[in-house]
C-alpha cells in the first residue's frame, strides 16, 4: 500500500486530489467515504442505528455466504500441514503439463513491501529449496507497481520457465498479462486473484468475509448489548479489505452493538493511537475495537493503557507483538488470520503440475483464528514483533534465523 508522497502532490498544486490519490487501487465513490465519515459524525445520537453506514459496493452476497459456510468445513489433506490442505477441492487433471525433472520455476511477485509479504516470501524461498526437482528459481519483484508486474510477467514467459507463479498486485489490471502467460506455460495464481480462470489453480485462504466476520462475531459475543464498538479500517477501495469490513458490518447490523465510529488509519500506528485516544476522550470508554488488519492493534491497545482505562475486547491479527500484548495483559481478544503459509502452497502446486498430478482448480486453504484457548501455541517470544505466527515455517530449514528470530 504505497502512497504517493503527499507533499509532492501538494507542491504540484494538486492538494485537493490528495485524498483521491492515496491508493492506486480502485477507489470507492465519494458518497461512500462520506457515509462512513458521516456515520462517525453523530457520536451522541441515539443507539438506534447500527452506525455502520452503507454496504460496500464490493459486497457479493453469494461469496459472503460461501465463505462463512467454509469456516466450519473440514479441509482435506495432512492435518499438521494446513498449507497442503484444501477445502472442497474440485480436482483438475494436469497431465498435459507433465515434464521430466530439472524444472525452472518462475515467480512474479507483486511486492515485498510489508511484513506479511516479507514473511511469506521467505517461506516460499525455503519451500523451493526443499525440492531438488527445481534446478532454477527466478523471481521478479514488481515493487507494488502494476506496470512493472505486467512487463515482469512478459519477461518471465520468454525466459524458458516451466511454470509461473503470480501474486498479482491488483486484480483487474493484471488479468490480461496473466491471460497472455496462460497460453505459454502453466500459471499458478495466489493471494489476490485475477478475472480469468485460465490459471491451472488459484490458491488463497477462505477470504476477507470470513476474516471480518470472525472478529465481528467475537465482539458480538463478548460485548454486552448496546456496547460501543469502534471500527478501524486501513483505507477504502481495496477489495480484500472491503470484504473484511462488509462482513463485519453485516454482523454488526444484525447485533445490538452500537458502532460509534468507522475510521481510516492508513495503517499508521500514530494515527491509530490518536484516533482511539480521541474516541476514548469522546465516549469515556469503548467496549470493543474491530480492525480490518492487525498491524496497528498494539497501538490501539496502548491508547487505552495510556488513557488509564481498561482495554476492551480487541480484534487483532497473528503478529507476534499483538499476541505478546494479549498474553501479558490477559486481554479479551481474537486474532483472525490471513495465513502467510499460503506462500508455500504455490510451490507445492507447481511441483504437482509439472509431475502431472491433479490439483484443486480453486485451492482454498483453511484460515484459522487465534483465540484465548490456542494463544500459547502461536506465541513465539523468540520471533520478531512483526512476525506472523501462521507462517507454517517452523519446520523449514533456516528457521528461526531466516525469519529474523533467535534460536
Amino acid at each position, binding site marked *: 500500500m504505497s502512497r504517493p508522497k503527499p507533499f509532492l502532490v501538494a507542491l504540484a498544486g494538486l492538494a485537493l486530489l490528495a485524498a483521491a490519490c492515496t491508493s492506486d487501487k480502485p477507489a470507492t465513490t465519494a458518497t461512500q467515504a462520506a457515509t462512513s465519515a458521516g456515520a462517525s459524525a453523530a457520536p451522541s445520537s441515539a443507539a438506534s442505528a447500527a452506525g455502520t453506514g452503507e454496504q460496500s459496493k464490493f459486497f457479493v452476497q453469494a461469496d459472503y455466504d460461501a465463505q462463512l459456510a467454509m469456516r466450519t468445513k473440514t479441509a482435506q489433506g495432512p492435518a499438521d500441514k494446513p498449507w497442503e490442505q484444501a477445502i472442497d477441492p474440485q480436482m483438475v487433471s494436469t497431465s498435459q503439463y507433465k515434464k521430466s525433472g530439472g524444472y525452472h520455476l518462475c515467480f512474479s511477485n507483486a511486492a515485498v513491501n510489508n511484513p506479511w509479504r516479507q514473511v511469506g516470501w521467505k517461506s516460499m524461498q525455503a519451500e523451493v529449496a526443499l525440492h531438488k526437482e527445481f534446478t532454477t528459481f527466478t523471481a521478479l519483484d514488481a515493487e507494488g507497481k502494476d506496470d512493472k508486474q505486467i512487463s515482469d510477467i512478459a519477461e518471465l514467459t520468454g525466459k524458458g520457465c516451466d511454470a509461473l507463479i503470480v501474486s498479482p498486485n491488483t486484480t483487474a489490471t493484471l488479468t490480461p498479462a496473466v491471460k497472455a502467460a496462460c497460453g505459454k506455460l502453466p500459471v499458478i495464481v495466489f493471494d489476490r486473484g485475477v478475472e480469468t480462470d485460465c490459471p491451472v489453480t488459484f490458491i488463497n485462504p477462505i477470504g476477507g468475509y470470513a476474516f471480518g466476520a470472525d472478529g465481528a462475531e467475537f465482539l458480538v459475543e463478548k460485548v454486552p448489548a448496546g456496547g460501543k464498538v469502534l471500527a478501524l479500517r486501513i483505507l477504502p477501495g481495496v477489495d480484500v479489505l472491503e470484504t473484511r469490513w462488509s462482513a463485519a458490518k453485516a454482523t454488526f447490523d444484525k447485533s445490538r452493538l452500537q458502532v460509534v465510529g468507522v475510521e481510516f488509519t492508513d495503517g499508521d500506528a*500514530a494515527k491509530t493511537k490518536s484516533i482511539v485516544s480521541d474516541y476514548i476522550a469522546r465516549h469515556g470508554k469503548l467496549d470493543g475495537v474491530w480492525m480490518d488488519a492487525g498491524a496497528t492493534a498494539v497501538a490501539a491497545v496502548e491508547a487505552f493503557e495510556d488513557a488509564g482505562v481498561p482495554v476492551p475486547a480487541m480484534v487483532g491479527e497473528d503478529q507476534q507483538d499483538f499476541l505478546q500484548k494479549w498474553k501479558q495483559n490477559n486481554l479479551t481478544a481474537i486474532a483472525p488470520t490471513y495465513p502467510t503459509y499460503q506462500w508455500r502452497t504455490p510451490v507445492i502446486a507447481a511441483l504437482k503440475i509439472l509431475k502431472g498430478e491433479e490439483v484443486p482448480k480453486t485451492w482454498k486453504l483453511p484460515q484459522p483464528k487465534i483465540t484465548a484457548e490456542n494463544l500459547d501455541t502461536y506465541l513465539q517470544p523468540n520471533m520478531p514483533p512483526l512476525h506472523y505466527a501462521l507462517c507454517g515455517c517452523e519446520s523449514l530449514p533456516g528457521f528461526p534465523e531466516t525469519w529474523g528470530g533467535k534460536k
Partner: protein
Amino acid sequence: MRRALPIFAVLAALLVAIAVANPFFLEPAGFFAFVKRAAPLVILAAGQYFVIVSGEFDLSVGSLVTVEVVVAARLIDGDEAATWPVLALVIVIGLLVGLVNGAVTTLLRVPSFITTLGMMLVLSGAVFLWTGGAPRGALSQAFRVFGRDTLWSTLILLAVGVAAALIMRADFGRTLIATGDNERAAALSGVRVTRARILAFVLSGLAAAVAGILLGGFAGVSAQVGQGLEFSAITAVVLGGVALGGGRGSVVAAMAGALTLEALFTLLNLYGISGALEFTVQGVIIIAAVAAGAVRLPFPLTPRKGDAHVAS
C-alpha cells in the same frame, strides 16, 4: 511579535471550539494528551522555521524521522541496555543529515529545494533497501517513555520551545533573519551567511531527530511514521505567519502554527471529518498563506524596523 498575534487568536479560538465539542479537553489529562500528540510537530516546526527564515526549505525531515525510528528499532531490538547509545546515535544522525543538507546547499550552491528533495529520496530509498519495506526489531521501554509518557514529552517540548526562542533572541537569530531577508546585505555587513545557513539545517536535523524519538515513543516502530511530516511542518511554519523566502516571522509563532494545525486536525476528527481531508486542509493553508503574503493590502501597514519588504 505583532505579526504573530493573529495565529494566537486562531489557536485560542480552536482550543475553545475543541473544549466545547469535548469537555474532557479541559481536564489536565485531556489537555496534556493533546500537547503530547502535538509535541513532535511543534518541534519539527521549530526546526523548519530556522531553515525557512534563512531563506531555504527542508523537505527531508519526514524521511529523516522515519530513518531515525527504523534505525533505532533495529539497533535496540528490545534490549534496554542499548537505549542510551542508540539515543545518542539518533541525535548524531540528525545533526549529520542537517550538516550535509546545509553544506550541499551553501557550498555546492544546489538550491535547498533540490538538495533536501534529493535527501528525502535518498533516505526513504535507503530505509526501504535496509528494511525491505518492513521494519525489524523493537524499541525498548526506556526509549519509548519519552514519547509515551505525557510528562516527558511535555518537558521535552518546553525545553525545545525555550531553546528555540533563546536562539532567536541571541545574535545568531538576528544573523539568520538578516541572511534570509537580504543575503547580500547581510554578507556585506559582516554576517557569515554560509555558516548561518548550515547551522539552520543542522538545527532542523536535530529537531527531526528529537521528533523521531517522540514519535517512535508515542506509537512504536513503523515505516510510515514520518510520511508527510515535512509538509505538515512547512504548513505549520507558514500558518505561523513566517514568510516563505525568509527574513520574516518569529519562531514562537511558527510553533503556535504547529499547535494550531494539530488543534485543527483534532477538531476535524472530533466532528468526524475524515482524516483524508488533512492533506487538503494543509494544501489550502499553504496556498492561501503564500497568496495572502503576495497580495498588496489596500491599507498601509506600519513598517517594521529593518524590514526590507513589508508589503511584498
